């Protein structure tokens, strides 16, 4: 049985804000299935009572003095924006329902 189906690939793609064509979705499903099948070998490892590792070199949370410092110049911060208005980023309409307008 496949570990991941084409339907699941499309669901995951939607979550990741990617749209795949038919051919790509089919191919990804088969490639991801092969990779997940390989990764499933981890299920043989006994990990009862093993804590997960998020970072290999654990450090205490670094603290610093709460002192104001000059921020990135707002002009520079928006300089790379595909579309801007003053120091604001412009995006397409967020609220659905009036797409023609």
């Amino acid at each position, binding site marked *: 049985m496949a570990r991941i189906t084409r339907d699941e690939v499309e669901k995951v793609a939607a979550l990741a*804000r990617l749209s795949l064509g038919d051919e790509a979705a089919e191919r990804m499903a088969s490639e991801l299935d092969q990779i997940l099948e390989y990764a499933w070998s981890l299920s043989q490892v006994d990990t009862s009572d*093993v804590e997960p590792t998020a970072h*290999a070199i654990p450090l205490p949370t670094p603290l610093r003095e709460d002192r104001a410092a000059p921020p990135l110049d707002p002009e520079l911060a928006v300089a790379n924006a595909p579309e801007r208005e003053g120091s604001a980023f412009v995006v*397409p309409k967020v609220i659905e329902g009036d*797409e023609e307008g």
Partner: protein
Amino acid sequence: MGAVFDSLSELSQKLASREVSSLELVGAALARADATQSTLHAFVGLRPANARAEAEQSDARRRRGEPRSPLDGIPIAIKDNMVQTGEPTTCASRILEGFVSPYTATAVARLEHAGAVVIGRTNMDEFAMGSSTEHSSSGPTRNPWRLASTPGGSSGGSAAAVAAGIVPAALGSDTGGSIRQPASFCGVVGIKPTYGRVSRWGLVAFASSLDQIGVFTRSARDAASLLERISGHDPSDSTSIPEPAPELASALDGDVSGLVVGLPRECFVAEGVDPGVLAAVEGAVAELERAGAKVREVSLPHTRHAIATYYLIATAEASSNLARYDGVRYGRRASGARNLTEMYERTRSEGFGEEVKRRILLGTYVLSAGYYDAYYRKAQQVRTLLRGDFERAFGACDVIVTPTCPEVAFDLGAKTSDPLAMYLSDIYTVSANLAGIPGLSIPCGLVRGLPVGLQLLGPALGEAVLLRMADAFERRTPHQARRPEGFP
């Protein structure tokens, strides 16, 4: 005039004695980069005007007798995933087309501060995801030893540029082997330091718990002097280790007597290892033994699960890190979308290449409800076991030795249609990233005319012992002095 394959210290002496100027060195590096671009394609972009201006400033400092460091005026290259103020950074991705950075990565800033001159940005697999530098929006880099072969990846452009004598040194990044594997394929030295040794500030994130900046050079000594410059605590990176930069070059005394080399039995019986590679590595171990090192067998039983563990953790982190490319604040935006969601989807679908999409999908899947425990959490638990393996092994030895890769450089196109085969190329390298420990690759022979890499792994913060052993090995063997034919 500086010779193409001069070391950092030779160039430094020639600059200090005025035998050569920085402008001449930088001009020669730019010319060689240009001349080899159509064959090697090591660079994504060069910065000739700025590099020449900086070289002139360096020459002026030298004339005044005020060099900033021995590196002042030396041309270097950086991987296209490290930002520099006023310069483009694309990560070899269409989605970052047009991006110009408002700030500079700490590692790059430290080199600038030492007076080094960045001549350009080297090619890579898109977002550092790959092992061959074929997944690049600007096309593949080729191996200077054999143009039909890949240079490895993802830092293939940096490795090729150093191997071909374009620059004496380059920065790369290593998330699962992306410095060591291309160093192995291109016959140069590459070191991935301990996680947190070099600041990640200004390194575009792929998998934040694994990413680390390191260096490519043509000798262990050069690697030591460059790594010293870029290491050390940086308050801008909360995972930066609060330790000063280590003294590395002074540790290279050529003496390895009494050091214990651990040979993990699992790495020498693994299937699918080129027998020529294995023979070269065994020859290197014998040489270290003749130099006075002791050899003993160690065991890393969980390394056979390292690739699975790595690709689950790295893709999970990548899927989260790459969510930021949404067409809103920088980079490319797809035109004509009717609403925000459509804009996101079209921007990301047009902007990311196949391998990046594959990893985002895999990472999103293993983090999604219902699969998180079976895949992602399981991988994090195996990561703990793997760290334990290394802790036990380093109780019995100073340095662990393995092949860097199971093979020599493979042909372009050989693995692009089989993602899992490409992933397995990282079988010896990913464990160091999972355990956070330093790893280094040095040339130890040729198989069918292509370089073989010897991997040395050390305990956390153990860069000095790795470089000391690598330097001692170089002094006793001819491998590091070999150059690719066709690039005289």
